[in-house]
């Protein structure tokens, strides 16, 4: 693990992981985020992941590619990924720059993202709150 404070948090919520990015991450922090998250999917036996990017007002090409990669890796490890909280400006900038967010599932906010996961992961015992 590389040093410095973590600029993201990964919380467990029932069968899901909620990963929040708190501030703009540089490339090495993004890599660390990716490693941590993919590892946690296995150790927590998560069925779904919500990545919350609401705090970000820019998302560069490396970041959006990393998010897409995480989605792919998570799928290989048996979890569905939903990205939530993309700001209007960020959304348009991403499309404008032709960033391929491919098959990544997106939702408005955390609540929506969890609902989306519920519909994807046909897990009969819905998360108890």
């Amino acid at each position: 693990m590389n040093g410095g404070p973590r600029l993201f948090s990964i919380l467990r919520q029932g069968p899901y992981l909620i990963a929040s990015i708190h501030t703009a991450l540089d490339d090495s922090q993004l890599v660390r985020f990716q490693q941590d998250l993919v590892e946690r999917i296995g150790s927590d036996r998560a069925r779904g992941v919500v990545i919350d990017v609401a705090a970000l007002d820019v998302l560069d090409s490396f970041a959006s590619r990393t998010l897409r990669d995480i989605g792919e890796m998570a799928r290989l490890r048996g979890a569905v990924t939903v990205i939530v909280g993309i700001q209007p400006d960020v959304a348009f900038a991403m499309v404008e720059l032709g960033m391929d967010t491919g098959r990544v599932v997106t939702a408005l906010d955390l609540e929506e993202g969890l609902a989306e996961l519920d519909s994807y992961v046909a897990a009969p015992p819905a998360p108890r709150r």
Partner: protein
Amino acid sequence: MSRYEDSSVTVAPTGATGDLDGDTLLPQLVAHLREHRTRLRQEWVGRIQEAHLLQAMTTQEMSAETTLVYDNYVEVLETGSVEALQHYARDLSERIIPRGVETHEVVGIVLLLRDVLARSLFEKYQRDFALLNRVLDAYEPAANRIANTVAVSFVEERERVIRQQQDSIRELSTPVLPVRERLLILPIIGVLDRERARQLTVQLLGGIRTHRAKVVVVDITGVPDVDESVANHLVRTVDASRLMGASVIITGLSPEIAQTLVTIGVDLSKMNTIGDLQGGLEEAERLLGYAVSREDGNGGP
């Protein structure tokens, strides 16, 4: 013949063959035009009707306007100042533009008047060729200036009207209407230019966030046509909405817009389009209802 090279109103008096010098030429000309005012005006109106110009006007209007134009015309010849004419031309344009009078008609009638008057001068002075030349030297530049002034005033007025209309189109904001919970409608009416397309994106993406919309129906029945950049912008907006977790249904695509989208090769697989607003709303409700019933089935009461 260096005397005639200078096309300004005053002609060098040296060796003048006529009994008039440059200063008295124009007043005499004006007096002649005033004297035969009725006959020349009638001739002019005849020529206008012959050329099928200004058909949007009634005979009375035509008679009133032509009298005014004639008097203004002669006045400009007399004083050399186009200010009053400019004012009148602008005023006239304001009245006739809404009635669909075209630029070529306005320019046409002024050129006809120029022609009618020139012919009458020709008739009057044809015996003295040198004098005729000098009269035309005085008349032509002034007449050209008048034609120029009228045409420019008309076009300026038209442009002003166009600008005003563009502003009012822009001011018509793009309304974002919540019709059901999580369902928005954006009716777009009028020409969608680049600026309005940008505004639409801001309203749409902002609306998705504030209303927590899941489905947005964008109705473009009222949009006549789009150009390539606007079409691309529309597709990107749909894409960006998807990133925010909302699906966009576009309704009311005109045949022209459909053609544009296909011709420029936009990736249409991401676009959900439905023929009319009614169908779009039904589809949106189906989308929303479907989600609700599934949630109920899974973990509902």
